[in-house]
């Protein structure tokens, strides 16, 4: 087990006042709150900060923690000394209750120090009597899918780590694997709700729900917004100038598209219904990007020279030079 330096986590000195600790906590909690932050490790950081605050905000727990000494460094191997907490009484005060409020949110380090003493005070503890029912909490997870999965629907295996309290009150995590259908037409950021698949309740309490947030893997050529799909389509100068019928990739396979003569660079064309299927289906927006043929051969250089002579073209005319 690794030692956790709660002062370092909170970014305060060991002699910080309770007010300073509270201020540091509020600031960090806002920064890392999983509803606010998009940082990948936000939830983890938020829990870490919550755990540090759980200890430091409570003068009794803080005093006991301080007694371990200032020589410990974060990450060092740690074993709680026997009877280290003699003379302290942890009367609880409850959890700060982190994101997802699962009881197993705290680290092994925290559990080894404060786990036994005061957990019994909580409703989720081993002391809960018969007749005590609490509904299970909801479980949230993210699912990464590809654009193809949204186009055609897919099945995904999702593994969840479920905290469980055993008969002696220890919290362990168990892996649970679910197979879930990803419905066709699902959009980025939408949630799939699986009723009753969340954390189990206590007693006869109903289990919570499982929410899966859909996130798209970035695609190499398409961008997705809602059900609409965006594509930058390179075209040759003569295709844009003279008009052409060209092949365009779409998520469902290539289609032919007509380009009008005199199409400008950056023109947007809409292919109705060629986005992600649904009611209504999304559209495919194609932005023309005129690609310049390289002037690497004598032949190509000659053609560019001919254009310079034949065309009276000043691309900077609008800039007044």
């Amino acid at each position, binding site marked *: 087990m690794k030692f956790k330096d709660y002062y370092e986590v909170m970014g305060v000195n060991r002699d910080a006042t309770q007010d300073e600790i509270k201020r540091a906590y*509020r600031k960090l*909690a*806002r920064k890392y*709150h999983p*509803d*606010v932050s*998009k940082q990948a490790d936000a939830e983890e950081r*938020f829990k870490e900060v*919550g755990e540090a605050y759980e200890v430091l905000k409570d003068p009794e727990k803080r005093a006991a923690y301080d007694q371990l000494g200032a020589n410990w460094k974060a990450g060092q191997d740690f074993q709680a000394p026997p009877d280290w907490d003699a003379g302290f009484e942890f009367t609880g005060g409850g959890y*700060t*209750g*982190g*994101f997802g409020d699962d009881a197993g949110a705290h680290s092994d380090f925290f559990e080894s120090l404060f786990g036994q003493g005061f957990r019994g005070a909580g409703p989720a503890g081993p002391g809960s009597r018969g007749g005590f029912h609490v*509904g299970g909490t*909801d479980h949230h997870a993210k699912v990464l899918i590809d654009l193809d999965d949204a186009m055609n629907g897919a*099945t995904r295996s999702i593994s969840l780590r479920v905290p469980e309290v055993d008969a002696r009150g220890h919290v362990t995590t168990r892996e*649970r*694997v*679910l*197979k*879930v*259908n990803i*419905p066709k037409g*699902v*959009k*980025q*950021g*939408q*949630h*799939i*709700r*699986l*009723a009753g*698949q969340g954390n189990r309740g206590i007693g006869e309490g109903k289990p919570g*729900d*499982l*929410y*899966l947030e859909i996130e798209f893997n*970035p*695609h*190499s*050529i*398409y*961008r997705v*917004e809602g059900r609409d799909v*965006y594509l*930058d389509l390179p075209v040759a100068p003569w295709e844009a100038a003279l008009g052409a019928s060209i092949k365009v990739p779409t998520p469902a396979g290539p289609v032919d598209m007509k380009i009008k003569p005199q199409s400008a660079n950056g023109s947007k064309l809409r292919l109705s219904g060629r986005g992600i299927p649904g009611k209504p289906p999304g559209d495919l927006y194609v932005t023309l990007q005129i690609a310049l043929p390289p002037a690497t051969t004598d032949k190509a250089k000659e053609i560019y020279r001919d254009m310079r002579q034949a065309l009276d073209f000043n691309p900077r005319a609008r800039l007044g030079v």
Partner: protein
Amino acid sequence: MAKQATDTLNGIILEEEARLTLRELCDACVVNADFICELVDEGMLEPAGQEKSHWYFTGISLRRVRRAQRLQRDLGINLAGVALALDLLDEVDQLREQLNRLSVPGQE
């Protein structure tokens, strides 16, 4: 438990298919109706229907209630502050989407 690993589960898309009464929303979020009414008063939720007994909420409401609960509890902000935070977070999400649309694929 082993059985669950082999069955394929079908969920519903919360944002599109879910339609909840006040009672169902309360049950799903484990809150009492007063809390929901406060959120409606604050303009955070906009149920369809006139009378409370005929209110209908969309699936998005469910997420907003859960988010409001967490923000209130974890950050100690009052409901007006939560309402502001939710609006700003929605705006940030929209801006992120736009940014994502304008960015060149394959380059992060």
